[in-house]
């Protein structure tokens, strides 16, 4: 596979580290419940088709990326920066 890093361009997948589903959001703060955290840490869907995933360009610019990939065909529809995702965060 190849991933089009928004910083570095199209690169071989060997340069990246896979994490998994990008959807779960960490329940931050002292008020977070153990149940919510459990869900965040362990519970994942395993869809056949499009999935937004987190990848880390460790052998490049060190950016964490959100990659929308079809798990069936490996076709990649979109790649963006994870840090741009959080509402209000600077690009």
């Amino acid at each position, binding site marked *: 596979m190849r991933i089009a890093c928004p910083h570095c361009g199209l690169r071989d997948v060997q340069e990246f580290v896979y994490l998994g589903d990008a959807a779960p959001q960490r329940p931050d703060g002292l008020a977070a419940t153990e149940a919510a955290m459990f869900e965040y840490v362990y519970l994942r869907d395993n869809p056949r088709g499009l999935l937004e995933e987190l990848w880390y360009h460790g052998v490049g610019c060190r950016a*964490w990326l959100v990659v929308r990939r079809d798990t069936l065909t490996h076709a990649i529809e979109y790649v963006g920066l994870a840090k741009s995702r959080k509402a209000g965060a600077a690009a």
Partner: protein
Amino acid sequence: MRKQLHRLNSGGLIDRTQALCFRFDGKNYDGFAGDTLASALLANGVRLFGRSFKYHRPRGLLSAGPEEPNALVELRTGARREPNTRATVVELFQNLEATSQNRWPSLGFDVLSLNRLAAPALVAGFYYKTFMWPARFWEKLYEPLIRRAAGLGRAAAVEDPDHYDKAFVFCDVLVIGAGPAGLSAAVAAGRSGARVIICDEDFRLGGRLLAERRQIDGRPAADWLAAILAELASLSEVRIMPRTSVFGLYDHGIYGAVERVNDHVAVPPAHQPRQRGWRIYAKRAILAAGALERPIVFPGNDRPGVMLSGAVRAYVNRFGVLPGREAVVFTAGDGGWATVRDLTEAGAHVAAIVDARSEINPESKTMALRVGARLFAGSVVEATHGGQALRSVTVRDASGKRARLACDLLAVSNGWNPTLHLTSHQNGKPVWEETIQSFVPGRLPPGLAVAGSAAGRFTLAEALRDGARLGREAAVEVGFAAAAADPVPATDAETDGLAPVWRVRGNRGKAFVDLQNDVTDKDVELAAREGFRSIEHLKRYTTLGMATDQGKTSNLAGLAIMAEQVGKAICETGTTTFRPPYTPVAIGALAGHHRGKDFRPVRLAPTHDWSREQGAVFVETGQWLRAQYYPKPGEQDWLATINREVLATRSGVGLCDVSTLGKIDIQGSDAAEFLERVYINGWKTLPIGKARYGVMLREDGFVMDDGTTSRLGENHFLMTTTTINAAKVMQHLEFCHQVLWPELDLRMVSVSEQWAQAAVAGPRSREVLRRVVDAKHDISNEAFPYLAAGEITVGGGIPARLFRISFSGELAYELAVPAGYGDAMMHALMAAGEPYGITPYGLDGLNVMRIEKGHAIGTESNGQTTARDLGLGRMMSSKKDFIGRLMAKREALVQADRPSLVGFRPVDTNNRLWAGAHFIGIGRAAKTENDEGYMTSVAYSPNLKHWIGLGFLKNGPTRIGERIQAVDPVRNGEVEVEVCSPIFFDPEGTRLHG
């Protein structure tokens, strides 16, 4: 020069002025440049190439290409011996040496051909059914027996002396196959200016044109070929790669290829690789891999002398070799008739043409008459005769009448299968095409197009047309302006009528579907009867389509017979999935430079050479090589060395490299807040100029890493990580910042490589450092107390950092200097410490001292332990959120009897301890249900003069003074140990503050 009895006097693409001498099975032969090993042997009249896999039947050449199932040989000798090499693709070179395989004692007389008598035991699935009981017989008896009887070649037993390369290349258009379609495509794309790579597995470009007598634009095809190759060579962005097999297609336009750079010479020239593995990144690709001719399944179809009709033409037209003088052609279509023509023109006599079709066109009948061949329409060959070489065949006509015809060659023609393998690597199921009675490519991977025969369009005219069109289209798709299209050249007339014969039933002899795996039509029937009807099951059960040829000639016949057995059409049974590699690939070509000591990069500390000068023994720690210990002459063993190093450090001063620890520079107004969130303990209160020990959890609550972090400024911290986890922690911190909390004002970078760092430990360490640190810096106990951290200078102004931290439990410092000064630092510290007997120590000495102090390392924080397990539970702040906080509180992780860290000492202090031992109550059986924990680290303490250990024990801290068994059934059985504090040495920590 020895006479080549079957060599034609003229013709072919061989160089008769360049004779090459070679050996096969110890006998010398001559061939010519341009030959393959197969064509050269055939020219010399050799018919017998090997023995078959299971039955040891004599086998000859079936093909002239990569699909060859029979003619597998061991190529070269000694360290370069390579088994299972197909003689049909081995380019002949001077002094080539090859040996036949799977025969004993000789190819002509093979004892195990008696296997044929035991044939009933070797049917489909025999290894699932036979030799099942008793089990112990398998290893001792059956397996060696089968390995001897059924097998292929022998690998070299010594290291390969050649080297291999791996390389990456990018292009706009990759063309796979340099036959008429591929060459047309390459030139069409190349003319537009696109970057084109054209690969062909052959050493000569031209594909089937090399083997056929065809006309293009009214002239011999060779003229067209020469012109197009010249044009390709003139295009600067076109790269022509002969001897290169594209073996796999991967996601997003990545192709694997292997270039046989120097397989065509005996020994590669100095500094050149034997083979080179390529990873090709292509925006577009055109598969023009051609097609493979199909054999016919009939009794005796494996006898040497039975050959594919297209291969016969290749030997005649390309190699100038006559594979037989008296031939019979058995054909199911028009293809066989071209062979009749070419054989006759080359001087062979065609005794008979056996065409399975009942209707023969008038031109063909005239040709049969002209060449003096008997014509059997609507007929089949139902048996072959002869020992190790064909002498005659039995023909059966439509009425059942039989005729026996003498011949030394039987050319068989049953149509062609597109070489579509690469199209199915990404789940592209081939689809059945009724008109050509074959599978053609199905859904194609993005960016791939298929041209000519590979798409099931078998005529030369279609190949030229497809190639030109697809080449232009590919270039345009990637952004190049289309070059003006030349008219597609005209070709001579051709026909491809076909009515395939999937098998001929007969009552004499075996009819082979898969020659390489000795799978017969009866085996397929048996599999069907036993319920292995799915095509994928058929393959696994019978081994049909396995090994080096991967069913290139056998797949379809197997499917057809299975379809017939289960009463389905071939399109309903489907086909197996072709997976990479298309052709066998040496592991060396995939590894390239990365073998032996270059298997992966090795990291050396900036003090490495100094350690080597000191006689260090090194040990791998992840990618790093670290000094393990520094033996001195006369020391009787490793333990004596370690004891000396530890005692010298604890009584005077020791010196240890710690450069390999990860170091991360963290700056920004939210740096302290960030540390609060990634460490379990607090950081906002850490004063500037101080270091603090921190523990990091994974989000699931288990310990991830630990180390000290120092505050260099209000908004500036320097984190250290363990050696092993440095990259992992960096990735984790980037995750925390970029994914979880991008709003934090934070800048991080690894500075691990910038600093050489050394631990100076022991009661005299301050005195040593005093002589190294520039005089203006006060490092007295008062000015620079325990956990002080500061920027200083050494050597008269060289910027350095000093940390008063200790892993050994002694008064200790870590001094960091820019890595280029690492070597100087060690020499300076040695010189300054000389009066105090400064002693280098390595990882093992450090390990002894940290066990004496009860400090956990990776053996304790092994990914299954929590901070609480390690006795660090109280460090976990309750005033803030941090990674892993909630999951670490899970019920099972906070149960009182969860094993936690304590120390152990042997009750009989003469006993040694073993890491990995499990704790079992005294008097209880060593069973899982009595398991109370395990030992993680042990060392001989030269200070206590007995072995000590750390480990995890249920309710550990409440059981100090209790005795328990440390059970290690693998090594020394049981040792009675006493549970104690994990801090064995200086429990009050007074030395630290000295």
